[in-house]
């Protein structure tokens, strides 16, 4: 499966629109979900679009070391951090996201998922990213550290702390 992404990316480097469309189809769900976890549902799709646009423009920068998915997540992470930099935007976004998480309490999603979203929203952005990569997408700590460009020890600490907070939610539900 990962080989197909590599083949598609090589075709994108040659300017293949078809390969680019296929690459988007294969990876959009994971990238968008990752961004929903770290940047909130309102911003996620915009940042995801910018991510794939950057992938098209800079396809040649993929060196083949990490997986294509990890490379896409790395771009998504940089875009999300860039979007977060404006202080006022950050305050407004975090507040809106926390409020939206509360407002969605009685939607179709269960209470557990709602509580989990709230717990995730309460973590720092770096912690959310580490948790999403390692717990949701099965990245090893090394892979997550490489993708997020943060030290391995920091990733381990983030995952440990994030896992504890999220487990409290499941612990209450068990």
């Amino acid at each position, binding site marked *: 499966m990962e080989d197909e992404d590599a083949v598609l990316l090589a075709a994108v480097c040659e300017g293949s629109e078809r390969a680019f469309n296929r690459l988007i189809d294969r990876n*959009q*769900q994971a990238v968008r979900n990752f961004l*929903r976890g770290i940047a909130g549902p309102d911003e996620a799709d915009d940042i995801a679009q*910018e991510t*794939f*646009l950057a992938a098209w423009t800079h396809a040649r920068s993929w060196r083949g070391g990490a997986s294509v998915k990890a490379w896409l997540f790395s771009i998504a992470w940089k875009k999300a951090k860039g979007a977060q930099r404006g202080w006022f935007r950050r305050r407004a976004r975090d507040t809106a996201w926390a409020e939206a998480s509360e407002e969605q309490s009685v939607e179709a999603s269960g209470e557990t998922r709602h509580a989990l979203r709230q717990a*995730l929203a309460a973590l720092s952005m770096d912690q959310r990213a580490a948790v999403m990569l390692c717990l949701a997408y099965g990245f090893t700590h090394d892979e997550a550290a490489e993708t997020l460009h943060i030290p391995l020890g920091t990733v381990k600490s983030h995952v440990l702390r994030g896992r504890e907070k999220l487990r409290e939610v499941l612990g209450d539900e068990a």
Partner: protein
Amino acid sequence: MSEDIDERLGRLLREDAPSDRSALFRLGVLEHRERQRFRTRSIALAVAALVLAAIVGIGFNAGIDLFATAAIAILCALLALAFLVSAPGVALLLRRLRGAGRN
């Protein structure tokens, strides 16, 4: 037990993912890309127009006659156009030659 909870966490974190296939999202990306291309082309055209205007202005001020100035401006424009049209092909050829050289 600890692994079960981690698996459950992973599953819950993935459960809110958007749908597996989203033509709408893909169209959004392509639209975004076309807007970016349009912006780049517009800026390039604006810069080209300014450069041509500068050439004509300088030529005029330097006392070169209008016909010669216009000829110089058109020549510059044609050279720039030739460069823009051929640059991607040249770049692709160079990459292939480099790749062949490495092999």
